[in-house]
């Protein structure tokens, strides 16, 4: 379990992380979403001890970060940080020498999955291959805690899928995964909970199923003109397209359905809102949903 409590980090006059609290239980994949500069990477740095938070606390299974924490913690940074002059095989060998939980079979399996050329220097690898090598380094100890900043960045769609499957499998085996991605589809596929950051704050967080259940789209089709819709609480956005009226709701859709019926809708249906939709709404200038 990773527990982040009231984490705050300021760089001079910029509040990069603002009172962030998050709890990721064992066996869970939490997707951290946000626009560029929202504070995701700084949050990761504070979590890993790379940056000193001005306030707050981070616990791993109840313990503060210590060198021994890294025996069970794997980290993949936003930009792969490898030794450019070392080969792929030497990177793996390095992990064998420095990590007591190194699993040679797992490393070999990952190298085969990513089809990494063992003898090639990391500086000669493509960006995607470098990301794959960083993942191999991080995952070859079968860590129970994973912190991944854009883990599938630069990978082709097949390998992106493979990485997500690895993370899902790890979580099913009890690992705690905290990952960020700009590819909402990846988060949608892998994460069972999500936290959306904006201007250093978490503006929306929870289990993805709950968030979707709480947020619906009510779509009504009308003959003739689309009527005006106002005075309905819980509606955060309205879209009109031809004879269709869509109301984006945070909360129970029943009152909206009733209103659509009252307005003479030919047909009304209730749809789940996508994670992308929730994300765009949370980071829009209008602010987070209530």
């Amino acid at each position: 379990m990773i527990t982040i409590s009231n984490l705050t980090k300021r760089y001079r006059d910029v509040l990069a992380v603002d009172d962030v609290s998050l709890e990721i239980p064992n066996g869970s994949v939490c997707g951290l979403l946000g626009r560029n500069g929202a504070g995701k990477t700084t949050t990761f740095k504070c979590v890993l001890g790379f940056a000193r938070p001005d306030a707050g606390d981070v616990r791993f299974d109840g313990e503060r970060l210590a060198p021994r924490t890294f025996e069970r913690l794997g980290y993949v940074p936003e930009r792969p940080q490898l030794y450019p002059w070392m080969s792929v095989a030497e990177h793996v060998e390095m992990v064998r020498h420095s990590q007591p939980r190194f699993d040679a079979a797992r490393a070999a399996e990952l190298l085969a999955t990513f089809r990494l050329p063992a003898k090639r220097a990391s500086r000669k690898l493509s960006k995607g291959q470098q990301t794959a090598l960083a993942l191999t380094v991080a995952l070859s100890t079968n860590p129970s805690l994973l912190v991944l900043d854009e883990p599938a960045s630069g990978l082709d769609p097949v390998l992106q899928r493979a990485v997500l499957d690895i993370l899902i499998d790890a979580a099913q085996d009890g690992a705690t995964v905290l990952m960020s991605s700009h590819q909402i589809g990846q988060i949608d596929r892998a994460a069972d909970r999500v936290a959306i950051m904006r201007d250093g704050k978490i503006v929306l967080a929870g289990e993805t199923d709950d968030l979707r259940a709480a947020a619906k789209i009510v779509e009504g089709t009308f003959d003739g003109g689309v009527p005006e819709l106002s005075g309905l609480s819980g509606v955060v956005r309205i879209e009109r397209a031809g004879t269709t009226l869509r109301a984006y709701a945070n909360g129970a859709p029943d009152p909206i359905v009733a209103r659509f019926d009252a307005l003479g809708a030919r047909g009304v249906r209730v749809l789940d809102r996508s994670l992308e939709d929730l994300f765009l709404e949370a980071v829009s200038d209008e602010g987070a949903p209530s």
Partner: protein
Amino acid sequence: MTYVAWLRVRRVLLRYGIFLGILFALAIVSIATALAGSHGHHANMLIYQHKSHTEDIGFGWILAGAITAAYLIVPALGANLDAEYRAAAIAFTRPISRYVLAAQYFAVDAAGLAIAAVMGLVIALSVVGALGGFPYVTFGPDTAVHVVLALCVAVMWYGWVLLAAALFPGRGNAMIGVSWAFALFVPGLALMPLPTLFHDIAVAITYLDPLAYLGSNGPESDNLLVFTSPGIRAAAALLIGVVAVAVGTRLWATREVTA
């Protein structure tokens, strides 16, 4: 992480070995050419060609010379810790403290310096042997202080580069170049006929220059930039080096990772 440290040092030693190999080849060619010109006389005759009497060759001087030659790699070793900063995602997520990681690097770097010194010693003795000088090599404690001085100056240079790279993280390679420029330029500046104020400043800066602590022996000793005996110079260089290593390590281990 000693694995990475060893790989790093191995790369440096490989380049140093190639350099020494080229020097050795040039020396052998020179000796062979001279021998050919001496019409078959034994090589040790070469020693006498420019001297009217034999001179002992102190082993300590040879060893100190080998250590001094290894200064070629000392700045590169001093920048090794900084190189880890650029791979922080790997280096700082090992299950050891950053201070232990640094200590491992120091141990490997020290071993690297020792190996470089041995490489230089082997080359130097080979040349001495080729010249027929082995019978004149003497062993004694009188030159030991110069071996110690050479080592202490190495520590000082290592410390400066480590500290400079810790102050400017990610710029270890630049600090290697700056250290060379500083080491070679500053003594020359102090010897230039500058106005008194500038001369005094240049001399003061000289005290930060590791090479100035080596000084010289023989009649040129009046030109020593850093006066005092070799023993005191060695102690001063060691102290400066150790303090620089300590401060640099502290900065390196506690700095936030921005990369």
